[in-house]
């Protein structure tokens, strides 16, 4: 199908039965139908251990996003699908661990920037730090970019988790 319309990024929440293979069903759907995954997070979210919440950030035209939601919704272990991007405002957070190595002025500068970003230092050696940073995807992108010139060694990120604002839930 020829793409018509603008491509937009959507954050989609999916409540699934916490059973073997459910993540493979979701990721297989995206790869099999050629949809894009920008990030995907999944973890158990109820105390009985029967349900998990998947947060997937994807992008596509309106028709593609509609298809993604419809395709997700018809998977048997899926309870609910919500498009946070169109359902209202929402809070989205990504966490990153960022390892930086260096000494002297570069080390001090890294620490100063980390402070500005309200990153926590969770590991330190004489010539390295690991910073823990939580925030929007854009904030983490900006932080990682700044660290690139200050001895960035590696980054681990969780991908986005998100909830809609206000009193109601999925």
């Amino acid at each position: 199908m020829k793409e018509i319309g603008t491509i937009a990024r959507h954050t989609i929440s999916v409540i699934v039965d916490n059973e073997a293979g459910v993540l493979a069903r979701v990721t297989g759907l995206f790869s099999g139908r050629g949809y894009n995954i920008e990030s995907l997070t999944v973890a158990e979210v109820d105390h009985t251990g029967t349900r998990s919440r998947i947060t997937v950030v994807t992008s596509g035209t309106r028709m593609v996003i509609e298809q993604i939601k419809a395709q997700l919704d018809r998977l048997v272990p899926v309870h609910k699908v919500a498009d946070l991007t169109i359902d209202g405002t929402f809070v989205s957070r990504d966490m990153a661990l960022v390892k930086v190595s260096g000494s002297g002025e570069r080390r001090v500068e890294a620490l100063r920037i980390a402070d500005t970003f309200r990153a926590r230092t969770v590991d330190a050696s004489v010539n390295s730090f690991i910073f823990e940073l939580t925030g929007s995807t854009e904030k983490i992108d900006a932080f990682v970019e700044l660290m690139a010139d200050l001895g960035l060694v590696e980054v681990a990120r969780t991908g986005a988790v998100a909830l809609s604002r206000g009193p109601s839930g999925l």
Partner: protein
Amino acid sequence: MTATTTIPATGRAKEKADDAPILSGAQMILRALTELGVEVVFGYPGGAVLPIYDEIFKQDKIKHILVRHEQAAAHAAEGYARTTGKPGVVLVTSGPGATNAVTGLTDALLDSIPIICLTGQVARHLIGNDAFQEADTVGITRPCTKHNYLVKDTERLPDIIHEAFYVGTNGRPGPVVIDLPKDVQIEKAPYRRSGQRGEHRTYRPQLDGDELALREAAAALARAERPIVYSGGGIINAGPEASELLAEFTRLIGAPITNTLMGLGAYPASDKQFLGMLGMHGTWEANHAMHDCDVMLAVGARFDDRVTGRVDAFSPGSTKIQVDIDLSSINKNVPVDIPIIADAGRALKRLIEIWHEEGYAKSQPDLAPWWAQIEHWRTKKCLSYKDSDEVILPQKSLERLAHFTKGKDAIFSTEVGQHQMWAAQFLGFDKPNRWLTSGGLGTMGYGLPAAIGAQIAYPDRLVIDVSGEASFQMNMQELGTIAQYELPVKIFIMNNEYMGMVRQWQDLSYDGRRSHSYSESLPDFVKLAEAYGIKGIVVEDPAKLDEAILEMINHDGPVLMDCRVAKIENCFPMVPAGAAHNEMLLAGDVIGKPKDDDALAVV
């Protein structure tokens, strides 16, 4: 996502909280299938399903049909399901048994056919060890089933089997796999259902359409000057009543109707409002009417690329109403103005009621100009062909076959290719559940096993597999199944010594370079039939065609007929690759090569 757990459930199995019978997994399977009303299983034994086969041996409620290849088991189950409306059941072993069934599962997924496939699996403690005949069946079949299960806990078996049938047959039907480790089949546990019946905890298809949307749809149809009904396989899946409601509503609104390949038989082909099949090899009148209509009612049809042709030129000016039970079918290929998520039968019933309530019959515009236009298109006689005294034309052979089977309520299956399209054009179905074809996946080798499934369901009906010599060879081992069960299936091979559709495309798009499309080294089909104790007939002379067809139909038993037809006949009408509906080619048109590589890339 989680690693395979191998905690045995033996401790729990010994508790006797109630009087639930203690059964082995294999016994549970047979019991659950019996509860679900299963009468026939199509299968092939092997190491990982021996406990189930042993239980089959000990009972006589469920009949087992031994196929000669697991792919055929799946297609036979499809044929059974499509003719009866009940789910078809398949039983195969682990590893190659399961992988051989994959084509049939994918076929059933694309055509929304309910089949339940039980696959053997290696014992739980061996899973992941590359054990003998081990395959990751749930992994392999995840994208080609509606849902699948790996049973790790024997106590869950009764619920899983019942749930699998629920999922397979409700909503948009489809194939479901239940993977059964061998030790689960042997282990004993209480046979107990958890009480969840009728409704699934997550899977609840919407059956009744939104009232406002239905009213809007009826109003749009009532205002239409050039309405059309376009119905597909979903109508067949919704049951024979849905087909009757479709006919009732179509007659009520007086609109022309076209069926997709999968939807043939839902509306009587002999009726004057029927325009024939639409799409790539659809009729001139159906495709033009779709292109020029002002309101389109799509019911149980999914705007497949074979139907739409070039999407951006598909029925450009129309208001599109789509009734489908699957939300993901809406707005997938073509934007729809009035979507209705519903069971086709229920939606049609409500549309009929609204039509009467609102008295739309009185306010409807005059459709005479629209019908005059359609009659004009019909004068093209787009299915006409040049007959010959020297050679049997494939179209002619089907016209005669249709003629001699008229009134016999025959069931036809097909393979895939030119013969399939000609069969769709010429056979003419007045009732649903009599037409078995591989529409979505286009599986050569589908027709013979599908015919077997239909014949098992209806032993006394006339079942004919319309075939090509190339497709036939893809599952011809099933002659053994036909012989074993003395199934009176008629196999009508339209033998043109080519993979005709491949050859046609090569001639049209690749300057006639017939790369590997010639059927070299064909067997003597009569001798082949006779080797299985089946009657073989060969006919080459057009003057003897009628006699040969009658001999085939009247023979009390299976027949393999080698009908030698014209070798280089093309299937028309044809919407060429990358073209719009109103750019169809007819027999005799000068055929140019596709305009560009984009068009060539459209298969």
